[in-house]
């Protein structure tokens, strides 16, 4: 084993120590204030970077891939309890692939993983039903833009994924807010700001009170967090 001293802090930061040396250096860290301070500094150095707004859609892409890795691993490492066709009767959307497809994929994948777990744990349980419904959102007068809403009912929950294009830029604190309405009574169901190309997407999951919604609408709200609409309806559709 190498003699571990302060010089090794550089190797520690580079992750190039062997397991044995790493363990020794971690012991050294406990007693060496200098090295601890250098390690602590690495929690602050990244702030030298210019703030860059993450690309829209990156979160959905990354989380989908992270959870997909897990599914692959599970499939490789665990034998299936029983051979069976697809775990979930997911209806594949026929529409052309859009830039926001990964968001749908993320939602469906979460469902799939959830179902796979439930299936593995309770093999005698009935398969949960998944239903996917898609509606086109119509622009109100004086507004441009198009949109689609997908409602995914699965395992008692209702997931709402909205995607839009051609929306006007927002000013100040404004935000596009999605609402679900039942007999004229709205609840907020996700909000978003469009990207510079006017495209936006929102995802919302409803665990309770999932039945009976008759309308979906998007308003342009003066600020985020309103519990009832204050702005004008931009896009809407009956359900």
């Amino acid at each position, binding site marked *: 084993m190498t003699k571990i001293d302060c*010089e090794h802090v550089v190797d520690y930061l580079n992750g190039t120590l062997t397991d044995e040396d790493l363990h020794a250096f971690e012991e050294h860290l406990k007693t060496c204030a200098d090295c601890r301070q250098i390690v602590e500094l690495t*929690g602050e150095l990244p702030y030298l970077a210019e703030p860059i707004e993450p690309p829209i859609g990156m979160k959905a892409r990354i989380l989908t*891939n992270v959870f997909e890795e897990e599914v692959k691993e599970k499939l490789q490492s665990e034998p299936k309890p029983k051979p069976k066709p697809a775990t979930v009767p997911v209806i594949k959307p026929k529409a052309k692939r859009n830039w926001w497809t990964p968001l749908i994929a993320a939602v469906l994948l979460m469902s799939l993983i959830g179902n796979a777990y439930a299936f593995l744990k309770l093999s005698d349980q009935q398969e949960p039903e998944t239903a996917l419904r898609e509606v086109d959102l119509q622009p109100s007068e004086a507004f441009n833009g198009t949109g689609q809403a997908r409602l995914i009912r699965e395992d008692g929950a209702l997931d709402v994924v909205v995607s839009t294009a051609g929306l006007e830029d927002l000013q100040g604190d404004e935000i596009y807010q999605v609402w679900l309405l039942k007999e004229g009574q709205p609840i907020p169901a996700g909000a978003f700001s469009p990207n510079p190309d006017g495209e936006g997407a929102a995802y919302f999951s409803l665990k309770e009170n999932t039945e009976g919604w008759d309308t979906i609408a998007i308003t342009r709200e003066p600020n985020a967090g309103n519990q009832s609409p204050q702005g004008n309806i931009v896009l809407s559709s009956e359900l």
Partner: protein
Amino acid sequence: MEKSSDFMLYGRIQRQDKAALEELYDRYEKILFSFLVKMTEDPDLAEEALQEVFIKLWRGKGEYDESKGKFTSWLFTMARNVAIDLIRKRKKPSVPLEEVGDLVNTDSSVEELAEWQEQKEQIETAVQELSDDQQKMIQLFYFKGYTHETIAGICGIPLGTVKSRIRLALKKLKKSLHGVQERGAIDD
């Protein structure tokens, strides 16, 4: 509602709590992405690195504990090492950032930017207190992830002294930053 601590979130992630991973993602997406773009000079590669970071977190088996210092230090160090790996494997030349401006939009909440700006100003002030050579050392080692051989070549110094020079530059920077932060606290 009080934000759960990073350590608590990490614990939930180890128990395969997807919501916790998403919360941690939201908390650090922007700083990690900005940092990774600075390192890789390539938003696509930065996204690849960020994904790798979260795959590691999701699969992680008890790697982080509080004896290893602040969670952010550990997380950023892990991200940096992922980026260095990808930079070294990268075949294509990096795209100059000016040409990829369309991929990103720059609006952020004012509050978030102000917080970032304050931290950035503090560390920039601290960096300016270093000698030119020390600043260069931090840029080449920390942000560029160059090997010791490359750094020795660029700086024209013996290979055997690279490590200790990096260490001294980092140590000096931490000391300066501490001074800047204390002065800031007194001004407030």
